[in-house]
C-alpha cells in the first residue's frame, strides 16, 4: 500500500499530483500488478481533500489502463509502468551526473541549473495537455 502526499504550494492540480504519485510508484516498483491502492475514503481521510479529486485521479488512471476498480472490493493495479529497464535508468543517471558536473564547472549555481533544466524540459516537452499558451 502506498501513501499519498499533497503539495498545495505547487501549481499542479491535486488530482494530477495523485496520478503522478501512482505512476511514480508503478515505475519504481512500489506498486505491482494486483496490488490494491488506497480506497477513496482512506485517501480523503488521510489527506483531507475533496473526494472528487481522488475519484478523478483514479478514473484518469483507469482510463489509461493502469488501475481497475472492482465495485465493493476496491481499486487494483492492472499493469505496471516499465518505461525503461533499471539498467537504462542507471545509464541516464550517469549521463545526467556528468552534465551536472560540467554545469557546475561552468559556474552555474543550483538555482541557475534548475532554471535551465526546467525551461529546457518545458521547451522540449511534447504538447499533450490542453495548454493555454
Amino acid at each position: 500500500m502506498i501513501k499519498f502526499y499533497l503539495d498545495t504550494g505547487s501549481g499542479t492540480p491535486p488530482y494530477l499530483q495523485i496520478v503522478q504519485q501512482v505512476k511514480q510508484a508503478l515505475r519504481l516498483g512500489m506498486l505491482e500488478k494486483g496490488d490494491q491502492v488506497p480506497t477513496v475514503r482512506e485517501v480523503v481521510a488521510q489527506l483531507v481533500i475533496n473526494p472528487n479529486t481522488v475519484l478523478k485521479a483514479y478514473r484518469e488512471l483507469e482510463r489509461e489502463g493502469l488501475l481497475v476498480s472492482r465495485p465493493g472490493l476496491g481499486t487494483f493495479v492492472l499493469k505496471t509502468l516499465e518505461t525503461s529497464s533499471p539498467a537504462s535508468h542507471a545509464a541516464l543517471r550517469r549521463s545526467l551526473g556528468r552534465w551536472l558536473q560540467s554545469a557546475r564547472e561552468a559556474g552555474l549555481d543550483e538555482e541557475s541549473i534548475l532554471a535551465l533544466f526546467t525551461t529546457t524540459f518545458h521547451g522540449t516537452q511534447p504538447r499533450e495537455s490542453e495548454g493555454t499558451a
Partner: protein
Amino acid sequence: MSNALETAQLGRRYGRVWALQDCTLALPAGRIVALVGPNGAGKTTFLHLAVGLLRPTAGSVSVFGHSPQREPLTVLPRVGFVAQDHPLYKEFTVNDHLTLGRKLNRRWDEAYAVSRLNQFGIPLTRAAGKLSGGQQAQVALALGMAKRPELALLDEPLASLDPLARRDFLRALMDVAVADGLTVVLSSHLITDLERVCDYLVVLSHSRVALIGDIEEIVRTHKRLVGPRTDHTAVAAVHNVIEESHTARQTTLLVRVNGHIFDPAWEIADVTLEDIVLAYMGQARASVSEASGGGMGGPWRSPLDDEKHDEERDESEVTR
C-alpha cells in the same frame, strides 16, 4: 447533472440595505462548494435563504427543485445545516442534543451520530457549553449529518477552530461526503481554508456573485501575463482582464483566457486560486464604486467590456 441548489435573481434586503442581490446560480449535486467572500458579502444570508431561515425579498431559491419556504417538510429533512458559530444549547448535554434531534426529525440516524462523536472522543454526558470550540463544531456537524442529508450547508464552520480542529472537522466532513455522496456548501472568508476540500467555487462580493465555477477549470483558465507596457487592447479583446497593474515599463494582467495567447510578448504564468479570488473581489469593489455612474455589469462582465471604462482604468495603478 442535476442541481442541488438553484437560485434565480435571488435577493434579500434588510431595511434599505441589500444583503444579497441578483444572485442567479446553480450548484451541481455531488460537489463540494466553497462559498467565499469578505465578511458582509452575503454568505450567511445566502445560506439562510437556502435552508429557509430567511425569505427572499426578490427572486427564488430551490433545493432539489423545492422551495425551502413553501415546502419546508420536503426540504428540511434533506438539508443538514450548521449555522455560524455552531449554535448549541449550552446547558444541554451532547445526549440531550441527540434526543432533540431524534424528536425533531423523522429521518434520524442516531447510531451514526454517536459513532461519529465517539470517534472524536466527545463525552456524550457533558454539557455543550463545557466542550471546546472544536468539539462543539463536531457536535453541530454530527447533529446535521445524523439527518443523513443530501445537502450540507455549513456557515463559516472553521472560523473559530484551531488548525488541528479544522483538520479534524474537515476530515469528518469529507468522510461523510465520500460515504453518502452528498453535496456540501462551505462558507469562509478565506479560500485557503477550503482549497483542498472544495471542487466548486462561488465568490460573493458586495452582495453579488463575482465568480462561480469548477475550481480546476477556474485555475486552468486564469493566467498572469507579464509584458512590456504597451497597449493591451489586443489581449483584452479576446480574453477577460480581471486585474491589471502597471509600472513605467511593465504591465501585469490577470486574465481569464479564451483559447490560446499567441502574442510572444507576454510571459504567461499560473495563478493561485487565492490570487484569482482576490482579483475578483477587487473587481467587484471597483464596479460597485462606479455603480453610481450607471447600470452595473453582471458578474461576468469584465471592466474592459466598456471602452470608456478601459480608458479610465488604464492610467490608474490597481493594487490589491
